[in-house]
């Protein structure tokens, strides 16, 4: 058996049972990456600070992750390792501190393999907005892996690493998970510390795991959740052992299917695949009911106001004064600011900064930002109301399967790809994307389950059940 094909849980068990050496795992992963990444281009930077030959598995004996490899999206700060956000602005930026999730992974004995490619500053749905290079979907050479955590999803899908961390502001974990045929979980806002996650939209951003199965997601959730004194928005509460919810049991689980979501025009194959999964859930004893939920299009509109507003402020700090790119030759302050930002940011980032600046401007604030916040409250209340009666809400993750590289040139069409994922961030609730089939082109289709605040265990249980019921034969994508 090829070690790189094993899940995190399998590897963990094998190490615990002394059936494999840690070095062999890393060798296999490294070998696979060396052969695969030149095609996929999932990594922006590899972690050069560790040497496989010097790895001693005894050092990890008492840890949870046993020295196993994890890839991290390049917008999560790691001390002494470049954190570029796939932007020219931060191409050479080396942070002097670790994000809280990085500290947690290190404490748990995880080894970080490298930083994965993304849409610049997490703005995008295809990883084409990376300032360096686009990442390729392992399931189709001319297909995008989704985004913005496209590198994290592709690396996992291609067997370069068993698990990775991404970040999700409007679907950036779930959408690439769906496109790449892997599992991706966006936790409740406040479940995972954002300290060290380079902010895109602070009130929406959340770090979460991607993996090839639900079991590994549960394992990673055990590592990364929890209170952090460095993040005031991180909630102080106890979390269960998520692996205890890996039960194939959806009996009496109440799942709502929102009419408004299925009224949207979207790909027929995706629809059939999702509805097929719904039937399977029903057969397994889940109670499926049609429900009414605020139209996702309102969430999408509110999202592109709130997210861009926060981004315009969060990205203002890249001015060339302290770190990152500084335009050369500017002979006054204003020029230094403007030229640095002109040269450092890509088109999509600039577009969103301008949008955000506009909606916060005096005279427009009430019509845009304030109204969007009101819509946000309505959407949140709507979800809360539904979750008093239902355990979960089900929808497709994305309207289509992975599109072609270069296919979506109109930004509005690109934004519409987030329609099913965005409401979750607006409401701050958790959601998971699990593979539920393939289209005729052989591209994976993802199904999204949404849960009430801090009910990740229900998502894990239902997603695990679905995985078992469908028993999809997810072969490794043929890489040529």
């Amino acid at each position, binding site marked *: 058996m090829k070690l790189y094909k094993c899940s995190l849980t399998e590897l963990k068990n094998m190490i615990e049972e002394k059936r494999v050496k840690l070095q062999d795992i890393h060798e296999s992963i490294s070998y696979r990456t060396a052969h695969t990444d030149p095609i996929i281009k999932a990594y922006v930077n590899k972690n050069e600070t560790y040497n496989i030959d010097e790895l001693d598995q005894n050092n990890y004996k008492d840890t949870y992750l046993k020295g196993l490899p994890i890839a991290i999206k390049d917008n999560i700060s790691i001390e002494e390792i470049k954190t570029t*956000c796939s932007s020219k602005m931060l191409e050479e930026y080396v942070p002097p501190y670790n994000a809280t999730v990085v500290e947690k992974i290190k404490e748990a004995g995880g080894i970080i393999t490298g930083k994965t490619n993304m849409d610049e500053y997490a703005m995008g749905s295809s990883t084409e907005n990376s300032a360096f290079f686009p990442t390729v979907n392992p399931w189709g050479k001319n297909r995008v892996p989704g985004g913005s955590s496209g590198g994290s999803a592709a690396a996992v899908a291609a067997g370069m690493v068993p698990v990775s961390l991404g970040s999700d502001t409007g679907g950036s974990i779930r959408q690439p998970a769906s496109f790449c045929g892997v599992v991706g979980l966006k936790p409740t806002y406040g479940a995972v510390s954002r300290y060290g996650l380079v902010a895109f939209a*602070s009130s929406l951003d959340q770090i979460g795991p991607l993996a090839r199965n639900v079991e590994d997601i549960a394992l990673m959730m055990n590592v990364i959740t929890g209170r952090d004194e460095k993040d*005031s*928005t991180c909630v102080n509460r106890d979390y269960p052992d998520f692996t205890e919810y890996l039960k194939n049991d959806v009996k009496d689980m109440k799942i709502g299917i929102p009419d408004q979501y299925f009224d949207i025009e979207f790909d027929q194959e995706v629809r059939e695949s999702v509805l097929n999964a719904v039937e399977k859930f029903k057969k397994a004893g889940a109670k499926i009911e049609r429900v009414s939920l605020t139209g996702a299009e309102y969430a999408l509109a509110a999202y592109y106001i709130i997210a861009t507003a926060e981004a315009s402020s969060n990205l203002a700090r890249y001015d060339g*004064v302290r770190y990152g790119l500084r335009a050369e030759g500017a002979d006054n302050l204003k020029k230094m600011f403007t030229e640095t930002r002109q040269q450092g940011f890509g088109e999509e980032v600039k577009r969103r900064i301008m949008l955000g600046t506009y909606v916060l401007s005096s005279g427009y604030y009430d019509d845009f930002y304030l109204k969007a916040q009101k819509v946000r409250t309505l959407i949140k209340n709507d979800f809360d109301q539904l979750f008093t009666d239902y355990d979960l809400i089900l929808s497709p993750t994305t309207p289509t399967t992975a599109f072609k590289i270069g296919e979506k040139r109109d930004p509005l069409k690109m934004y519409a790809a987030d329609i099913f994922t965005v409401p979750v961030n607006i409401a701050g609730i958790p959601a998971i994307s699990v593979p539920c089939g393939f289209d005729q082109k052989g591209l994976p289709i993802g199904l999204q389950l949404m849960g009430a605040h801090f009910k990740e265990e229900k998502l894990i249980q239902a997603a695990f059940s679905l995985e078992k019921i469908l028993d999809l034969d997810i072969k490794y994508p043929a890489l040529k």
Partner: protein
Amino acid sequence: MDNKYETIIGLEVHTQLDTKSKIFCSCSTEFGSEPNTNTCPVCLGLPGTLPVLNKKAVDYLIITGLALNCEIAFYSKFDRKNYFYPDLPKAYQISQFDLPLAKNGYIRVETEEGIHRIGITRIHLEEDAGKLIHEGSIDQSSGSLVDYNRTGVPLAEIVSEPDIRTPEQAREYLNYLKKTLEYLKVSDCNMEEGSLRCDANISLRLHGNKKFGTKVELKNMNSFKAIEKALAYEQKRQRKMLENDKKIVQETRTWDENKSKTISMRGKEEANDYRYFPEPDLVPLEIDEKWKKDIEERLPELPAVKRKRFIDEYNLPEYDADVITDSRDLADLFESSVSEYKDAKVVSNWIMGEFLRLINEEKTAIEDTKITGQLLAKMLKMIDQDIISSKIAKTVFEEMFYTGKDPEEIVKEKGLKQISDQGELESLVEKIIDENPSVIDDIKNGKDKAVGYLVGQVMKETKGKANPQMVNKMFKEKIK
């Protein structure tokens, strides 16, 4: 000043709160450290960092609000004020916009025209920015350097109502604020070190008019005197313009100390649009009844109340009460002394005389001296018991001031005990009589004052230790 126009002044005071650590990180707030040594990823605004509110800064703001008769908001929040400047690492300042922590307060100030009530619109909490440093002068320097030590030091912004009518009232308002903040021990109000800064808004209108005139904002005044001077200058300038039917332009003017005049800095059009919006990285600030009560209990007696009580309770002259209550430490020294030595006027004389003389000579802070009320009281009792003379007491006091030693011990160590031994003094008196036959003759001829000379001679012989009353009496008896 003629009576045609009424002057309307409002003041905005920024004062650094004297917390040990910064408002959103644990860096030291110490003034005068090496540039950029009191910094960390958070106050430098490095990508991914998050603010965590310092509770002490909130406490300080609440107590300030209570002392200035404000309502304390049970619910307030933080907002981002967005603008680009190299001393602002995040390119936004975390401040409070529409929901300040304290509002609707007032103070009463006294000028020659009587007592005047000045409303306080609001007091809010925010972070300070860094400081630009130029080699030589701004014009000649080849570049700018930035020191971020001050970045993130907590500031209270105190905004007055436009209730101030004269530059004198403005000065008295500032004096009142400064004294109060010092009493509360929340700020050292040192304008030179920049821990207190003040901007002013000033406009003129015809007496009886309800509508305000066009206001001008004044900046860059570095002392209370400069503020008073700038306001007086601006009052005159605006009056002249109005009298000549010229329009006042809404603008920001800067005070040029050397030229003693205000100079236009920027017009209304160039004003920033700060694009305020709620800070998503912090949760709203909720002050419950208990928190407020706890702080209320710590509220010290304020200067005006203390002054009145000192006059009523200790029968102090108004002048003494003014001087003694000018600082809380001075007032505390007075009261602790008076609690053990009943003659308040004597205590006040010593504090206003010897104590303040030494303070001024040594340029030390009152709290740094070694003298206590107990020591002073003990020394005063020793004078009353004829153990030392008032003159010797000055030597003892000085020693106490520097060493904090017990006066009894000082007297013993230095052999300063008063000579009250009848025999010892008599032989000295006789010696002086023998040595000064001509003086004796003068006295016998009615020049009574010459006795003083003889007493002086004895004091000289004994290095001031002879009991002067006894010596005086002896001379008078012997030269009859």
